[in-house]
């Protein structure tokens, strides 16, 4: 009985939003830039079967995931090294603290100068923004690792390599995954942002292009698509987390 009630409770806010939105868009006085949910849904249904829209989604997801993957491949080993070796930490601490608070949008002009306006620039910006949550979480994980795990490994004369791979890495997987969940959302946000600023293709470009050509229903359909994608990606990551971190 508890589950249906909790499910119904989750629906209260979305239903309220639909009701308020419908109140605003019903009747003849609705602003032209706020179409009804029904027309947005119809627009989305017709868009989703077109190759062009699918291409926009695909390219945005491609940038988002490639950027995220590169960020993860950089951030996990670097975070582990920083946490493990104090000398490396001292060496990079200033650079990290300097770069970390920089808004990713601020590096876009620099990235354009060096990399042009192609995919490599867009992915670079995503990598820049997505690296930090994974790196900081990995670092925190290593610094907060259960000391008894390391003691056990040392007392049983286990090699540093095995300790790192078989003890430290799985121990900090929950923290790494927390970083992943934040970073994948940032990757999607940055993919959209860069596409809006630089243009070319992708959902960000599609939304801005629709807005500039007064296709407001299409614009909302694009925004809703991002929301749906973000929601689905989050579900996939939660499932992955449960599957990989099976001992929690």
């Amino acid at each position, binding site marked *: 009985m508890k589950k249906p009630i909790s499910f119904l409770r989750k629906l209260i806010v979305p239903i309220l939003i639909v009701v308020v939105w419908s109140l605003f868009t019903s009747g003849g006085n609705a602003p032209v830039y706020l179409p009804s949910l029904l027309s947005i849904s119809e627009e989305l249904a017709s868009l989703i079967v077109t190759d062009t829209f699918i291409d926009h989604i695909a390219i945005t997801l491609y940038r988002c995931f490639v950027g995220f993957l590169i960020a993860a491949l950089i951030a996990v080993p670097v975070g582990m090294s920083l946490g493990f070796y104090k000398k490396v930490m001292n060496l990079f601490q200033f650079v990290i603290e300097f770069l970390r608070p920089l808004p990713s949008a601020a590096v876009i002009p620099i990235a354009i100068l060096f990399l042009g306006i192609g995919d490599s620039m867009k992915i670079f910006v995503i990598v820049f923004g997505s690296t930090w949550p994974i790196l900081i979480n990995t670092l925190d994980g290593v610094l907060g690792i*259960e000391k008894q795990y390391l003691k056990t490994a040392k007392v049983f004369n286990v090699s540093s390599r095995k300790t790192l791979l078989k003890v430290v890495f799985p121990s900090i997987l929950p923290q790494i995954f927390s970083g992943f969940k934040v970073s994948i959302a940032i990757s999607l946000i940055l993919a959209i942002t860069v596409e809006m600023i630089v243009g070319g293709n992708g959902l960000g470009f599609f939304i801005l292009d629709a807005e500039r050509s007064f296709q407001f229903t299409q614009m909302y359909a694009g925004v809703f698509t991002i929301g749906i994608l973000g929601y689905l990606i989050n579900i996939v990551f939660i499932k992955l987390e449960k599957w990989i971190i099976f001992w929690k």
Partner: protein
Amino acid sequence: MVLLECSGIYHQFDENQILKEVNLSISKGEFVSIIGKSGSGKSTLLDIVNNYLPATSGKVTIHGKASMVFQNYNTSLFPFMNVLQNVAFPFPKLTNEIKKKCQFYINLVGLSKHEKKLPKQLSGGMQQRVALARALAQEPDLLLLDEPFGSIDFQTKNNLQKELLILKDRLNLTIVLVTHNVDEAIFLSNRVLFLSQETHSISNDLSIDLLEPRELVKTTTSNQFNSYKKELLGLYNT
């Protein structure tokens, strides 16, 4: 034959003297308990013997191989490894031979049906058995136990202690147990050493001579047991 020898062990942490001129000699086959007040350096001494901590000065000689069971079974076992993987963890590779050896010791501690379970699926006592199997799988000459029964319920503790005595004879082990529990120390050991917080060294070395085989009720209610207990408890009040 002397298996463990500590001579002139000093250990200092920051400004605090933890151990001072600790001398200790343990022969093969002995079951020695080290007791003392909290903070007297019992676990530190064990960590030095086990080469986890360096002594500020002094020398530890072990004629053979040592292995250890830690105080907190819930943190010394890896939660992401199953029973077999935990027991095999110290080995460089899990070959068939190693796997069989680990299974033998898992079986020996009565967990043969649980080798694929994760620690969280086991009770506290079972987890401590896994830690014991891991230590035994190293086939040590010297088994070091750091308060292994500290956080286990009474019944499980008694069973584990009985099994430990049987395993000691069966595997011809020499055991050093660190504990704060005087009853446990007397019941299990041939010798009890008192580590003094005042002198930071072993102030008493008491030989325990009780009727064998030791049985919980019979042994712990005997006059001899109580006389040892009285003597050792007296050391806590000095």
